[in-house]
C-alpha cells in the first residue's frame, strides 16, 4: 500500500512537470515564434522600444526558453527574484511567476482566490452529495413511484440546464426581484460567517442543482443494479434488517462509481468554477483564469493551469485510495 502511494505521488509530480512544460512552451514560446514580444502587452500604451526592453528584462523574457523554464521551476521550489528599475522583487516559494498586469506574484493572487473557490466548491459538493445520493437511493427503492418520476424529471432538467441559466434565474428571482439575497457577493468567512453563508446559498444551490441531478441518476441506476444482485437476496434471506441490507450491502457497492466521479468533480471545481463564479461575480480561481486570458496575463494562466492540474491529479489519487475503503475487494500492491 505504501509503495503504491509513493509510486502514485511520484507519478503525480511527473505529470505536473509535463503539464508545466507543455503550458510553458505554449504561452512563452509561441510569442517568440510569431515575432511579437509578450512584453509589448505590458509596457504601457504605445511603448518605446527601450520600455519594452526594460519590461522584457524585468520579466526575464529576454532569456532563452529553457533558462526561462528552469527559472520558473526553480521558483516553484525555492522562490525567485524579479529585477525592476526600482529594486528587486522577491517572489517567495511556491513562485508560480509574476502577474504582468497586477505586478504581484501569481501565488499571492491564487491565495486570495482560493477561499472563494474552495467555499463555493466544498459547500456545493456537500449539498449535491447529500441531495443527489439521497434522492437517488429513494428513487431506486421506490422505483416507478411518483417520487421517482418527479425527482428523475427534475434531475433531467438539472443535467440539461447550464449553470448560467439556472444561476441567472435564481438571481433574477431571489436577488433582483424578491430581494431575499440582496447584492450577492463573496464575504470572507473570517469577517462574518453568517454573511459568508448567506451570500453563498444561491451559488451553492445553483451549482449543486447541476451536479445533484447527475448524482441522483447515477446513484439510482447503481442502486437498481446492485439491489438486483444475488448477494442482496442472500443478505435478505439471512434475515438482515432492510436498512442494513441497503446501507451495508447495496449502497456500498453502488458507491464506487459515485466516489470516482465525485473526486474528479471536486478536483475540477477546486481548479476554478468558472461559470458559477462568472455568473455570480465571485472573484475565485475560475474568474482569475478568465481574467488572465482576457488580459493576456500569461503567468496567471500558467499558474491557474498548474493549480487546477494539481487538484485534478490529487483528487484522482485520493479516489483511487478510497476504492479500498469503499470496496473491500480492492487491494493495492
Amino acid at each position: 500500500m505504501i509503495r503504491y502511494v509513493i509510486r502514485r505521488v511520484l507519478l503525480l509530480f511527473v505529470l505536473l512537470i509535463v503539464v508545466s512544460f507543455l503550458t510553458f512552451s505554449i504561452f512563452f514560446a509561441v510569442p517568440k515564434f510569431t515575432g511579437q514580444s509578450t512584453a509589448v502587452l505590458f509596457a504601457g500604451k504605445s511603448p518605446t522600444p527601450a520600455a519594452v526592453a526594460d519590461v522584457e528584462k524585468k520579466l526575464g523574457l529576454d532569456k532563452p526558453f529553457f533558462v526561462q523554464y528552469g527559472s520558473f521551476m526553480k521558483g516553484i521550489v525555492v522562490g525567485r527574484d524579479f529585477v525592476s528599475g526600482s529594486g528587486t522583487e522577491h517572489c517567495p516559494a511556491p513562485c508560480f511567476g509574476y502577474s504582468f498586469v497586477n505586478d504581484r506574484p501569481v501565488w499571492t493572487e491564487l491565495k486570495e482566490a482560493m477561499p472563494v473557490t474552495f467555499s463555493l466548491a466544498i459547500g456545493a459538493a456537500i449539498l449535491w452529495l447529500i441531495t443527489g445520493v439521497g434522492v437517488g437511493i429513494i428513487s431506486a427503492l421506490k422505483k416507478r413511484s411518483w417520487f421517482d418520476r418527479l425527482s428523475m424529471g427534475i434531475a433531467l432538467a438539472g443535467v440539461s440546464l447550464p449553470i448560467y441559466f439556472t444561476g441567472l434565474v435564481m438571481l433574477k428571482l431571489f436577488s433582483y426581484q424578491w430581494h431575499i439575497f440582496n447584492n450577492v457577493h463573496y464575504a470572507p468567512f473570517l469577517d462574518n460567517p453568517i454573511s459568508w453563508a448567506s451570500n453563498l446559498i444561491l451559488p451553492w444551490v445553483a451549482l449543486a442543482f447541476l451536479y445533484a441531478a447527475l448524482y441522483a441518476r447515477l446513484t439510482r441506476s447503481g442502486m437498481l443494479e446492485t439491489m438486483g444482485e444475488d448477494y442482496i437476496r442472500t443478505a435478505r434471506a439471512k434475515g438482515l434488517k432492510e436498512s442494513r441490507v441497503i446501507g451495508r450491502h447495496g449502497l456500498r457497492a453502488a458507491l464506487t462509481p459515485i466516489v470516482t466521479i465525485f473526486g474528479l468533480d471536486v478536483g475540477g471545481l477546486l481548479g476554478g468554477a468558472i461559470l458559477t463564479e462568472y455568473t455570480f461575480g465571485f472573484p475565485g480561481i475560475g474568474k482569475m483564469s478568465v481574467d488572465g486570458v482576457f488580459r493576456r496575463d500569461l503567468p496567471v494562466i500558467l499558474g491557474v493551469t498548474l493549480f487546477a492540474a494539481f487538484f485534478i491529479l490529487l483528487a484522482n489519487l485520493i479516489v483511487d485510495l478510497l476504492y479500498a475503503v469503499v470496496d473491500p475487494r480492492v487491494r493495492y500492491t
Partner: protein
Amino acid sequence: MRRQRLLLAAVPLSVLALVATACGGSSGGGGGAPKAGKAEFNGALNALVNPSTAKGGTLQMATVGDCDYWDPARTYYAFCWNMQRFISRGLMAYKAVPGPDGASVVPDLAEEAGKPTDGNKTWTYKIKKGLKLENGEAITSKLIKYGVERIFAGDVINGGPTYFVTFLCPGKTDKTGACPTYAGPYKDKAADKLGLSTIETPDDNTIIFKLNQPFGDFNYLAAMPGTTPVPIAYDQNTKTGGAKYTFKPVASGPYKVGPYSPGKKITLVRNTNWDAASDPFRKALPDSVVLTINSNAQDVDNRIVAGTVDLDPGGTGVQVATQQKVLRDLNLKNRADNPFTGFTRYFAINVNVPPFNNVECRKAVEYAVNKVDIQTARGGPIGGGAVATTMLNPNIQGYTSFDLYPNGADHRGDLAKAREALTNCGKPNGFSTKLTTTNAGKGPPVAEALQNALKRVGIKVTIEAGDPASYYSQFIGAPATNKSKGFGIMVAGWGADFPTGYGFFSQIVDGRAIKAQGNSNYAELNSQKVNGLIDQANAATSATDAAKLWGDVDKAVMEEAAEVPYLYDKALLLHSSRLKNIYVTAAFGMYDYQALGVL
C-alpha cells in the same frame, strides 16, 4: 485608438464659446451652485439631479474590470482618472459642474492657474500652503516634482500618458519617445532624488516647469493625475513604492485607499488629513466608496436596476439587453443619461498604400460610405452614437460643424459623387483593397457595413481582422507592416486625453508623430499644411486663437480625405434610484463620481 476612454459629454454648439474662454484655466472655484435638473432622461447632462449635501452612507459601484492602476502616474483608463478625483489632488483639476464648463480646468493644489512666460515655454504655479498628505507629510512643490519625475522611469512607472516626458525631457526625446538625459527618480543620482533640471522648486510653494518647446495647453497636463504629490521616502522604499505604489497610493484627496484586493474589490475610506476648505469642489458626501469588480456585465446592470449597486463607473454604458429595458420603462429611463463619450470613430485611409496615394481614390470612399448602416452596426443612435462628419467631436474646443463630403441627405452615400471621384482617380471601375478591424465586438459588423457600401461603386474590400488586445499597438501600429500587407483602410477610434485640439490631434494626424512601432497616425498623414497649422495652434497665446486654429486643422485634415469620421460615440449610463448629486461631467463624458452622494 487610445485604449482608454476619455472625455467629454454633449456640448451644444451655442455654448462652445464658454469652453473656449475657459481654456487655459480659470482662477475661480470649481463649484458654485449648478442649475438643478429634473430626474428624467438626459436630465443630468446639463444640470444637477437629486441635489444633496447629506454626508454618510456607502457609495456602491461595480464594473467589469479593475483600474489599470491606482498609481496616479500610471493610470490611463478614463474612468480611473475620474475615480482618481476621490483620492488624488493635482495642480489643476476639471471643474466640477454640469454641462460644457466641466471641460475647463480650475486650480486644485495650485493657488491659481499656471502662468505662462517665454512664449508658452515656462509655466509657474504657486501651491496652497498648509496641506497634508494622508500620512501627515506636508504637500510641497518638491513632492509634486517628484510625482512628475516618476513618469520618466518607463521601466517601472509605465502605462500612463507620457506628455510630461515629451515636454520636460532636458534636451529632446529620442526617436523612440524616450528621454536619454533623465531616467526617473529610481536611477536619479541626486541625493534628494529631484534631479530633473527642467522642473524648478525655488521654495516649497512654487514649482516652475521649463518646457523644451512651446505648449499652450499645459494647464490641461497639470490637470492629469500625474501632478499628484508623491511622498519620496515612501516611494523609494521598494516594499511600498515604485511598481508597488499602485496598491497603496498615498492620498491627497478626501478619501484614501482602504482594503484593496486587485481585480476584486477596493474600498475608499475618508482621509482625515484632507483639508475641505482648501478644496475647490470636492464634496466627499459618502463615508466610503466601494468598487466591486464583477466580470458579468449583465449582472452589474441588473444590480443597478435592482438598486443594490449605485452605478457602473466604467462609463461605457449598459448592455444591449438592459438598453432595451431602460428605453421601454419610463422609471428606468428617468434614471438614465446618454452623453457623448468624447470618442470619434473613423476609418483611416493609408495614404501610402496604392491606390490611396491618390486623394481622389480616398474621396471615393468618403462619398460612398453608408454612415447609417455603420451607426446601426455600432448600436444605433443611443448605444452607438451620432453620425460624424468631422474628426473633432462636438466637445473639443475648436469644433465646428462642416461636411466636406456630403454623402446624401441621409448619410447613406452619394454614389454619383463617388464614381466621379473614382474616374478622377483613374479607376472608373473601382479597385481592390484591404480593410482591417478587430475580430471581436463591434469591429466586424462595422467592417462589413463599409465593405457593403464600397461594393456599390466597385471597390472590392477584403477584411483582415486582428486580436483586439494588440490591434492598435501591433496589428495596425507598424507602418512598414501595413504597407507590406497592403492595409488600405483601417477601422479606428480616438478619444482625447484632454479636451483641446492638441489633446485630440497630436498623435493621429501630425506627420512628425508617425512611429515605426506603436504608431497612432494610422493614415500616415504627413501634410505640410496640417503640420504647420498644428505648430501655429501650439504657439497660440490666446485660447480663442488656439481653438480657431484647431478648427482649421480639422478642415485641413478632412481636405486630405485620409480619415473618414463616421460616428461621435455615445453611451447609455444608468444609476440607482437612491443616488444623489448626479451630473455628467464634460471632462470625462461620465457622471462626476466625486460629487455623488447616497443620502
